[in-house]
């Protein structure tokens, strides 16, 4: 009998059916992958499994009993959210055991005791930090592993629900995590694994369920299917996985020349970017790629070095100068640095082009609405209407809105920082095509920061690898995947 079963659940929101009589069984000792595009209903499913939403129709069975009626049953579901939500200023041990009521810590909290209890857990999850360290001082990778560890502290969990647990993990730590998950599977727990990364699903999963537009469209044993099958089911069309996205219009004109730049997290970096080129930056999480780009853009300080832009000295440390000169940064932290969450899609897009929408002092609303409509159409942004608050859009559509907005401030150099983080396969391809088009047709120089090897390989005309803030090596597009991988982890070859 299934440990967890959703039985024909339906969940509606005003204007959309988020889940349409979905029926899935999760078995003990099995890793069950859920995959679907943004907006397919994965998040709603998670929220139904964790008790945030109650489905209007259907039942959620835990061990044969209906959890929509007996809510405490959902405590058997240990949930690891996609975003890291640890307490930064508390110790690793405290983070592991909060909330205390659920982890069996009673009475007065004794720090030493907690730390002693934490040690074996940290060892089990191969997290190499001390129990008394503050969470904000440990690496992002360690934080993500800690988050998984925390979910399993609750003793009588039966189901482990992992929502994209590898987005901030290095390749090495992903391996560690997969070993841990395999161990947990041996304890006869049921594991629900949600990911956009097909290679992970094939490396780890036993069973896969594909969601599309709120419906379950297919399920199968992983062994019996291949990635084309999944993509076809997921998108409802076949996507050419071999498609390449390098620009074929690279000119000799250098747009951006960076010389011996040193800042907080990077040292002595030099490179140049040519017109119509896509230049990939690869490296581990924390290698200093984002910091380097944000410093060039003017958001972070530069200690020494020189930036030349279109052959002349570039003013440092002033983002509004950069933007007005066509150097635009599209941040990785979309939610924090990209979108203006409670403003409408319209205002989010028009904010970058207000000067062209003004007549005297005032903004011409009609012209604004037309311009925004154009952008929504041109960049295929799926939204009920332009007045919708942007936070309600899926990640992919937020990203497209941000790109559309950047395009309206006549960019000459675009820095894409992890542009497809948390974005599904179909939309990813859309974004790659867009980048290629911008480079080829508009002659824009593009810098692409990405931790995904496939993405870097498929899109870049040249690839630069950073390791611990230093430039390791530079490759052309024919570079070998193994070579790049070893440079990423700091091995010279």
């Amino acid at each position: 009998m299934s440990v967890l079963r959703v039985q024909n659940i339906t969940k509606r929101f005003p204007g959309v059916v988020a889940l349409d009589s979905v029926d899935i069984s999760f078995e003990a000792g099995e890793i069950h992958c859920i995959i679907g595009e943004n907006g397919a209903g994965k998040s709603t499913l998670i929220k139904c499994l964790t008790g945030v939403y109650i489905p209007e129709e259907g039942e959620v069975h835990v061990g044969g009993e209906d959890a929509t009626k007996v809510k405490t049953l959902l405590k058997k579901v240990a949930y690891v959210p996609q975003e890291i939500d640890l307490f930064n200023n508390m110790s690793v041990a405290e983070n592991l055991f909060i909330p205390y009521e659920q982890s069996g810590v009673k009475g007065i909290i004794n720090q030493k005791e907690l730390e002693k209890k934490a040690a074996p857990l940290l060892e089990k999850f191969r997290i190499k930090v001390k129990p008394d360290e503050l969470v904000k001082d440990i690496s992002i990778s360690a934080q993500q592993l800690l988050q998984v560890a925390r979910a399993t502290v609750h003793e009588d969990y039966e189901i482990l629900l992992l929502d994209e647990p590898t987005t901030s993990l290095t390749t090495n730590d992903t391996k560690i995590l997969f070993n841990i998950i395999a161990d947990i599977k041996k304890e006869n727990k049921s594991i629900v694994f949600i990911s956009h990364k097909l290679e992970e699903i094939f490396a780890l999963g036993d069973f896969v369920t594909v969601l599309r537009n709120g419906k379950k469209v297919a399920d199968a044993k992983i062994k019996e299917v291949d990635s084309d099958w999944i993509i076809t089911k997921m998108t409802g069309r076949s996507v050419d996985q071999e498609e390449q996205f390098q620009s074929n219009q690279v000119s000799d004109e250098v747009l951006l020349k960076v010389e011996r730049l040193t800042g907080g997290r990077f040292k002595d970096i030099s490179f140049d970017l040519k017109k119509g080129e896509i230049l990939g930056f690869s490296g581990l999480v924390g290698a200093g790629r984002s910091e380097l780009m944000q410093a060039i853009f003017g958001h972070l300080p530069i200690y020494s070095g020189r930036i030349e832009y279109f052959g002349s000295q570039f003013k440092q440390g002033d983002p509004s100068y950069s933007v007005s000169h066509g150097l635009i940064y599209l941040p990785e932290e979309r939610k924090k640095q990209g979108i203006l969450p409670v403003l409408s899609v319209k205002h989010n897009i028009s904010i970058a082009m207000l000067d062209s929408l003004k007549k005297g002092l005032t903004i011409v609303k009609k012209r604004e609405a037309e311009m925004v409509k154009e952008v929504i159409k041109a960049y295929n942004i799926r939204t009920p209407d332009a007045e919708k608050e942007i936070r309600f859009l899926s990640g992919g559509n937020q990203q497209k809105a941000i790109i559309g907005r950047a395009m309206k401030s006549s960019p000459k150099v675009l820095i894409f920082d992890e542009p497809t983080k948390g974005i599904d396969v179909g939309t990813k391809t859309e974004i790659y095509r867009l980048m290629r088009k911008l480079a080829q047709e508009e002659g824009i120089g593009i810098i692409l920061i990405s931790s995904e090897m496939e993405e870097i390989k498929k899109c870049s005309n040249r690839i630069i690898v950073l390791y611990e803030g230093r430039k390791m090596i530079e490759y052309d597009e024919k570079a070998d995947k193994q070579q790049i991988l070893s440079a990423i982890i700091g091995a010279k070859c």
Partner: protein
Amino acid sequence: MNRNALMNRLKKSNMTAIGIVLIAMIAIASITSPYFLDIYNLQALIRDLAFVGMIGIGQALLLLIGELDLSVGKIASLCGILAGMMMVYQDVNPFLSMFIALLLGCVFGCVNGLIITKLRLNSMVATIGMQGVYGGVNLVLTKGKAIPGIPDSIQVFGKGSVGIIPTPFIFCLIVLILVLFMIKKTKTGRYIYAIGNSREAAKILGIKVDKIRVVIYSIVGLISSLAGVLYVARLGSSQSAIGESWPMNSIAASVIGGVSLTGGVGNPAGALIGAAIISVIQNMIVLLGVNVYWQSAVSGFVVVIAISFSSISEILRERKVKVS
């Protein structure tokens, strides 16, 4: 069709909800006390609310970018004193004195803004400090004494009426119209909402965030000094104690009016309605003859209830979503 669109907009707007609360308050007040609708009472009430109202509108601008200014009251009284000293002691032309005082208020606000942006201070802590400075300078100048003998030409601005509408309220409406124009129609207005939504994102968009913050502090300083000078005109003498309750009441008025404390959400017009609600509450308490010693406690409690209206409606809405 057009009418439907208007109805929809009204239904959606937060403003409608607090408007209804205000009307309900007025209805209760006029039922419980026969004196409430008396024209003299209403005029006094409106004259009173003009001051907290206009400062509330300024405070709302700051709340929109996620900041606040606790020195508004002290800027108001210092500017009132400076205007009074120029007019009465130095024989400067009264109108020129008033103009200089307004300018100085703008400078004080600008100083607040520069300190907060350049030294990267928290606005609340910084303005607690600055209100001490402005209040202290005030005491040094006056030794706590009032400056009587404000010329009649100036007193008209505080005591007079245009038709039946008290002059200070006219000024308040002018402030509102100018601020609404800025916030709804101009680029700066859009940038203010953007900054309130996410200061990081606004910076990365190339918006000159700090410049706009300083401008808003300056505007708030200007509005504060306007309120201070008008109050002096109303009293006929400059006094150090003017505006003691304005910082807190202006924040409460904004929050009642639906302006979020975390920034990015709300409309400065709500602050004026919020101020009106506070004034009606205080007026009602006096009219009902509540014991003098109890007045402050009662009005404080009712203000807390008024503030919670917006969050209560939020809670109810969430519950509705969950159930359906």
